[in-house]
């Protein structure tokens, strides 16, 4: 039996893009040659700025995006699911095992559904339960695990605060008893106090229910606190990956360093300046050749040799992987 729950091998996901019907069709590579293994029981973090491909990678693992190259394997106890070749029948099973936490269920769901119906819907759609009574039991069980007030199950979600809505969303994702959860910016819109509460809840549920998370976030401080391993993405590539503590205490790639230095310190006396990156993230439609980070990298060479380098992760210390170009520039 594999110690990993997900293996992503040389995965690329491209989208067709056409500005208008007269212009040429273009391909956007949203995710480019990604290799990751997610260990069972881990809290795997994926960080990066907007457009870096985090959501596309998460959705590809859930089977919601078409795989252009490479493969994604989900290792269940009894069998493997290969997302490249999965049949629609297998997909029905797979959906029970791998779930997404919505950012905001209220935005995604009908305001005419009660909290009970929102949480119960996956059970009904996936035909997991056989009677209303069984459904209700499962709903109540997961709702109380998510510390929702059972009295509230009959109410409509608009009446709830951001934190409560997020609990509803978590309960809905967990009701089918999945093993693997993609949490995409699940705390991004919340106030710090509610954020702390939801993060603690996710940790607690992980222990209680033996869950593995892929936790997608743009907030490095949050990721540093909850994740045990972290991959940093930039323009569709993973540029660095390491156990959390290693990554945050000893970042190696110039992009990771710049990201970390950009977090405003809560200590007013610590005015250590952010490593300012020139310009903005290039468009994924037209990414730089060679090292994708070279147009903003403070170490890019004058002779432009990064134009031709081939990207790829190298293990520089046990479990600490850095893009080759980042290794070269030291």
């Amino acid at each position, binding site marked *: 039996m594999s110690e990993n729950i997900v293996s992503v091998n040389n995965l690329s996901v491209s989208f067709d893009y056409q500005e208008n019907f007269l212009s040429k069709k273009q391909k956007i590579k949203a995710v480019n040659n990604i290799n990751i293994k997610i260990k069972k029981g881990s809290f795997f973090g994926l960080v990066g*700025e*907007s457009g870096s491909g985090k959501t596309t990678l998460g959705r590809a693992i859930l089977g919601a995006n078409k795989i252009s190259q490479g493969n994604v394997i989900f290792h269940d106890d009894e069998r493997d699911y290969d997302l490249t070749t999965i049949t629609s029948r297998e997909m029905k099973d797979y959906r029970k095992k791998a779930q997404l936490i919505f950012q905001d269920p209220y935005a995604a769901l009908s305001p005419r559904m009660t909290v009970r119906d929102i949480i119960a819907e996956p059970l009904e759609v996936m035909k997991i339960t056989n009677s209303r009574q069984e459904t209700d039991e499962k709903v109540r069980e997961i709702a109380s695990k998510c510390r929702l007030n059972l009295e509230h199950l009959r109410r409509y979600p608009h009446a709830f*605060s*951001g*934190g*409560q809505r997020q609990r509803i969303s978590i309960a809905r994702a967990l009701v089918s008893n999945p093993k693997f959860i993609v949490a995409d910016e699940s705390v991004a819109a919340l*106030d*710090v*106090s*509610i*954020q*702390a*509460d939801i*993060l*603690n809840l996710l940790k607690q549920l992980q222990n209680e229910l033996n869950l593995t998370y892929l936790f997608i976030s*743009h*907030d*490095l*401080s*949050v990721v*540093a*606190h909850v994740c045990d391993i972290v991959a940093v993405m930039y323009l569709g590539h993973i540029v660095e990956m390491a156990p*959390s*503590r290693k990554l*945050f205490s000893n970042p190696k790639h110039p992009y990771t360093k*710049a*990201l*970390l*230095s*950009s*977090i*405003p*310190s*809560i*200590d*007013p*006396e*610590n*005015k250590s*300046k*952010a490593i*300012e*990156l020139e310009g*903005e*993230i290039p468009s994924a439609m037209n990414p730089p050749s060679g090292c994708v980070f070279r147009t903003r990298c403070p170490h890019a060479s004058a002779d432009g040799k990064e134009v031709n380098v081939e990207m790829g992760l190298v293990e520089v210390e046990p479990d600490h992987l850095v893009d080759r170009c980042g290794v070269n520039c030291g």
Partner: protein
Amino acid sequence: MSHLLEINNLDVKFDTDEGRITAIDNVSLTLDQGRVLGIVGESGSGKSVTAKSIMQLNPGNTIYNDNAEIIIDGENVLKFTSKNDLKKIRGGKVSMIFQEPMASFAPAIKIGSQMVEQLMLHKPLDKKEAKNISIDMLNRVGIADAEKRFNQYAFELSGGMRQRAMIAMALSTMPKLLLADEPTTALDVTIQAQVINLMKDIIKEFNMGVIFITHDLGVIAQVADDVAVMYLGSVVEQGPVNEILKNPMHPYTKGLINALPDINNLDAPLTPIPGNIPSPLDRPTGCVFRTRCPHASQEGKEENIKMGLVEVKPGHWLDKCGVDCGKI
């Protein structure tokens, strides 16, 4: 000495279908030229309403109290009624920038035309002079190809660029007071770092007073000189940023700091503030924070106390009730 901005005893209420709600309760603040006052607090604490009150941008269902004052340059803007009076503040002495720059730009008008129009409204300039100033300003905020951008629409710019253009427009009239409402919240961290550095340079160069609103204590620590912590429409603690963040005394300020994931202290647990923020329709009487405060007493004496700031150390202001609980 007279201050650039003085807010005295401000209450703001809104008439809504569900009843009259209190958004701001007895807030007093001062700001001097060249200083940055940070306002921090969770969603709904009244940060934006405070800023909008200064600009007189609150909607028709707003009720101010009679003895409230918002004094800018010796004049109480709450007494302003004529268009001409309001013109002195909006885009004149005071400019405001927002989280979403699209809020500042009309989608169908070119960035340059809007900047020129605004400038000519407030300064005795001809079109050519206004254009020159605008392009200078776009350059100043680090926009490459300023002349080209001048002729573009806001939607054609990337998020970071738009934020810069909005700052350029807000500053072109040389306001004495800048109100910045979450100006970096929607930006990626590396772009946020660029915009924060830009704002710090500009604040110094123009010697304005700034109110910088954010829910991010890290941003406050990096840009503000002073900070006011708001909860449910009340300022509960206030003072120099270093003092307040290093020696927080109010249970709410402490709660905010303890809930924050600090990248330099990964072993610290994340401690939420218990309970939920009450609805502004059921604003607690007495101490507004009592329903969530770990120090609230059994017998409920906080229900009857009157809130108000007292100076507990030079420059460090704390709500009276916080002073009492500090002793617990």
